[in-house]
């Protein structure tokens, strides 16, 4: 479980995860992303450091190193490289546009380029108000929360074996039926 929550009263986005969190919305990142993707996210790190996102619960995930290697080998997309390439392209275009000599119009679609860059910059970082918001109580539906925990518990005990648990057993006399009848009328 990697359970994060938007602590602000406004929607914030984590561009590199392509994730938008509504006001005070909480989410378990492990459901949508691999742990590696979530931990690599610069947008997420930045928002956490600004206090706009709080990590409510983060469990350790033990991953076999061979599996990690395999994931790396299959991950051909390099977001950092792409971002650098785009930024270099943009610099060239700006340089061309601001030079004294008139130049022919760039063949790059500026609107498209700006859109792509905007999508890569964590939007939370552009918020003007730099004050750290108060950590507010995050409202998460109890049923959803219990379901999340239920799944997590199942993961934790997966493959666990053992002997039967012998309890100290007591059978006691009780007036519980009388109490229940009485309480049913009260509650």
């Amino acid at each position: 479980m990697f359970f994060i929550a938007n602590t602000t009263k406004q929607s914030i986005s984590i561009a590199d995860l392509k994730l938008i969190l509504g006001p005070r919305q909480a989410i378990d990142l492990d459901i949508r992303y691999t742990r590696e993707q979530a931990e690599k996210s610069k947008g997420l790190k930045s928002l956490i450091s600004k206090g706009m996102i709080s990590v409510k619960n983060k469990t350790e995930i033990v991953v076999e190193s061979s599996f990690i290697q395999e994931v790396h080998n299959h991950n051909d997309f390099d977001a950092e490289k792409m971002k650098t390439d785009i930024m270099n392209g943009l610099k060239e275009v700006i340089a061309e546009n601001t030079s004294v000599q008139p130049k022919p119009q760039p063949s790059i679609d500026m609107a498209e380029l700006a859109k792509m860059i905007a999508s890569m910059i964590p939007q939370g970082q552009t918020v003007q108000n730099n004050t750290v918001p108060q950590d507010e109580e995050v409202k998460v539906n109890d049923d959803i929360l219990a379901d999340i925990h239920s799944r997590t518990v199942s993961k934790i005990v997966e493959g666990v074996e053992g002997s039967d648990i012998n309890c100290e057993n007591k059978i006691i006399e009780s007036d519980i039926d009388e109490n229940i009848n009485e309480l049913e009328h009260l509650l």
Partner: protein
Amino acid sequence: MSKAIGWDPGTMFFQVAEKSGSKIDINVVRNAFVEMDATEDIEQVLSQNKWQYISDGKKFYIIGEDSLKVAKMFPGKIELRRPMQDGVLNKGEDKKMLVMTKMLEDIIGKSTDSNSIVCFCVSSDSVDNDIDNTFHKARLEGMAKRLGYNTKVIDEGHAVVLAERPVLIESDGTESPYSGIGISFGAGKVNCVLAYKGLPIIGMSATRSGDYIDKKVAEQTDTPIAQVIGIKETKLDFDNIDYDDDVIFALDAYYSNMIEYVFKNFSVKFQKVKSQFDAPLDIVIAGGTSMPKGFRNKVKAVINDLDLPFKIKDVKHSSDPRNAVVKGCLTQAIISQKKLKSTSAENILE
């Protein structure tokens, strides 16, 4: 057949109760474990000794009462670990879920239908630290839901009220049952709830309880904590304090301090609802830390010296202090199950 189960996931004991005819069937496991390396002959050693254990493939965990035996056999080498601390899941213990989930699954099994329910208790808001119950509560709900049960959560002090039936005498002489203050003196925490006609009105919890007292007495008297616990369980009698015995004297002093602390803090909470409770209140006490002889008289003596914002009708000690909380949880489980069944029936009729 639908199951209705009361569950008290205590810091010291993990208790589960189920109704069996007119009686109550209670299963108790010590909420502790020790870790052992997976050696070649480990399974043989475990089964020869009939020690209860679980294994995640890498390590073996001996759980329950057996863990205490093993820890005593290898003092200083094997550490007794606890899934709970201060009334909530122990944040410093990474195997807590593994152990408690296995305990619950083994004891209650899987739900047999959609009307089965588990009612468990949690601590009320803490007065002396910022321990938040949200995660603890959700994790325990997750454990029960994973096995297919509906869940109901109540405050621990409320469970004492439901089990012990304190009665308030109204100004017109009528009786209002399940009205009064329920206090559970547990290992990790003391929990108090003021209830009226079965409904919780205010609640609080404090970490100055059994474990706190043991630790403080051990520190102050330079006595091993296990020895302090032993003296507390076998020799402590508040009606006959041996003031020459350092440990007994320290236990008496720290118990006084705990009772005073709890009532002073509860009084602050009570001020908010003071106007609604003119009549003297019954106080019912329960929990493992209330077990030493003379505890009821000790409570009476301490609160007699306090200026409390409420009048006290009587201080009652549960006839079954160790099981009162789980009995209260079971009571609530059965009531909630009846409601669940009637709602299901109404939905079918509609």
